[in-house]
């Protein structure tokens, strides 16, 4: 009896303590209940040479060769920590946002995020402008068609890391006749089709196949297209939606034709020559992943030095040959002519203007429209 009463007392004491801590911790509003500050007072990350000290970079996995980081460290005396912790734009944003809202970058000097996410972060006031004085190589060598994107016309806050195309990846033995996104809805490929979980890749491609320009599409166009996907899921046409994991399904032969990224196709093809990237007849989606400087970033001078370093074509060449994505740096092709002549005519690495003539950039979505469309799309992913 007594011991029971004593334990009850303990529970009460614990509860009181808990309440006290909670009350102490919740003085004002909760951590994420901050309003956005907007891009009105964006600072420029002043370049003050020489670069030195520690540099921390967050990038996507398998996006750099093994030597570039150590070569950069040797050339500049900077001590770089390179982390591969960006797996998904939205998830990375959700993870970083509470810090960014407080003006912190979690110790990172530089991130790599896709166009629309760079724009979104910038609009929230989470990015700094890049000091052009620190990146002469970027000014000199950035490819012309990437110099003035609609989301950042003067490249004030973003520098492309690599670019790529979203289109069809097919197993030419299993799906010889798939050339348009519309062919993915052909019942003969029922259950053998996959699409990407990226809203801004999958939906615009399906829109284009239906003759809608994704960059001028209305919210209703988005919802109608998402509804079309929903029906294709319900009928069993679309097996599932994936990120990079479609590479396993493709390699295992579980799927015949999918929506995927150009660089993956090059790597898949190395294992299975039947797998190939196909430019959809109605065009692809073009995107870049960009280096950006978050607010509160330490040692932005070293980060700018890194941007400048990878924009020297000689330093870019190993990154480009490792990735098989579209390199944003002019002059790499000339180097490849000597070192990797077989890559020079690969349209996935050096696409001609004619090859990408029907392609669109990823459309911008924001505010309420973004939330409505995202919710509808996620509803299809989790039917």
């Amino acid at each position, binding site marked *: 009896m007594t011991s029971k009463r004593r334990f009850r007392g303990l529970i009460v004491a614990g509860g009181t303590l808990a309440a006290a801590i909670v009350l102490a911790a919740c003085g004002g509003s909760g951590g994420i209940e901050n309003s956005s500050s907007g891009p009105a007072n964006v600072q420029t990350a002043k370049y003050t040479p020489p670069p030195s000290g520690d540099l921390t970079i967050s990038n996507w996995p398998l996006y750099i060769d093994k030597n570039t980081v150590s070569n950069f460290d040797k050339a500049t005396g900077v001590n770089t920590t390179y982390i591969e912790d960006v797996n*998904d734009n939205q998830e990375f944003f*959700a993870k970083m946002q509470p810090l960014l*809202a407080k003006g912190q970058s979690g110790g990172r000097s530089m991130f790599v995020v896709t166009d629309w996410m760079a724009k979104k972060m910038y609009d929230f006031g989470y990015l700094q402008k890049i000091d052009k004085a620190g990146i002469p190589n970027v000014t000199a060598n950035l490819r012309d068609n990437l110099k003035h994107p609609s989301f950042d016309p003067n490249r004030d806050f973003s520098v492309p890391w690599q670019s790529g195309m979203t289109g069809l990846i097919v197993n030419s033995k299993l799906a010889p006749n798939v050339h348009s996104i519309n062919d993915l809805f052909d019942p003969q490929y029922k259950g053998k089709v996959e699409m990407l979980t990226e809203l801004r890749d999958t939906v615009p491609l399906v829109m284009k196949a239906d003759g809608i320009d994704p960059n001028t599409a209305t919210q209703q166009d988005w919802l109608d297209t998402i509804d079309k996907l929903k029906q294709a899921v319900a009928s069993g046409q679309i097996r599932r939606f994936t990120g990079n994991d479609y590479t396993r399904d493709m390699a*295992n032969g579980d799927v015949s034709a999918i929506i995927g990224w150009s660089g993956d196709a090059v790597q898949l093809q190395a294992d299975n020559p039947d797998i190939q990237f196909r430019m959809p007849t109605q065009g692809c989606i073009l995107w870049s992943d960009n280096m950006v400087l978050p607010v509160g970033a330490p040692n932005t001078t070293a980060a700018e030095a890194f941007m400048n370093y990878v924009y020297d074509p000689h330093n870019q060449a190993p990154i480009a040959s490792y990735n098989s994505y579209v390199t944003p740096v002019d002059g790499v092709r000339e180097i490849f002519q000597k070192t990797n002549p077989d890559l020079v005519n690969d349209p996935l690495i050096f696409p001609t203007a004619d090859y990408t003539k029907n392609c669109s950039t990823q459309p911008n979505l924001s505010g309420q429209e973004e*939330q409505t469309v995202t919710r509808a799309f996620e509803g299809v992913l989790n*039917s």
Partner: protein
Amino acid sequence: MRNQRIVALRRRLIPYFLLGPGILWLILFFVVPMYYMGRLSLDTGVFPSFQFNWQFSNYSDVLSAYDTQFIRAFEYSAAATVIGLLIAYPLAYAIAFRGGRWKNAMLLAVIAPFFTTYLIRTLAWETILSDNGFVVHTMQSLGLISGDGRVLATSGAVIAGLTYNFLPFMILPIYASLERLDRSLIEAAKDLYSSSRQAFLRVTLPLSMPGLVAGTLLTFIPATGDYINAQFLGGAQQSMIGNVIQSLYLKQTDYPAAAALSFTLMAAMLAIVFIYIRFAGSEALMGEEVEST
């Protein structure tokens, strides 16, 4: 006199000291986050500016929007629990009563999968159950699935994955309760002319109930909230409630809806577990400690 009082005081304080670290841990990492989650679940607004608004409709909204995935999660995990039990009980019985000198080796084999991470184990199943794999071809030739049928991206694959991943949590408690069972009780039953079957049903099974109840709970609870198996082994139509919560938090950044859904899930699980324990009897869960008092 004084000395005695100090001893008495110390004796009274010792339990507090012993409980201290645990309680502090629970407060910091359970009570405080729960408070914020509860508060968040009543917010309104668009990310990142949410306002606290006593928005109780968040709860009814998520429940009506995601009832399919909610029910599916409970169905899948109930199926995985039942199948797991059917596999685990005979196995645990065999190890406990017939293991002999192989007992430790067999237990090691049960735990061995834990040497590989959960994610990798699930991904391995993706390869095992692949459309062109051995398992699917065998099932096709046995007529278990149609000639162009598949296993991956079906409910069966998700349930199989859940069963596999949580099986050790079912086996170990059942094994523990069978292992410490007093064998002379079974002999006594047989001396009293009960058949093997009767002895099992009236002695072994009731005495192993604590392990059985613990095992089913350890399987059912985590399996209901799981999203890895549905993500890798399921298709677009096999999403469980965990996948929806993940999407709401990380993709849609709709924190109030995600928090409301998490709370609803917790409440539903608590209710089910409560009814289950009531039904199975709390003595079954607590085991001998209750009996001995």
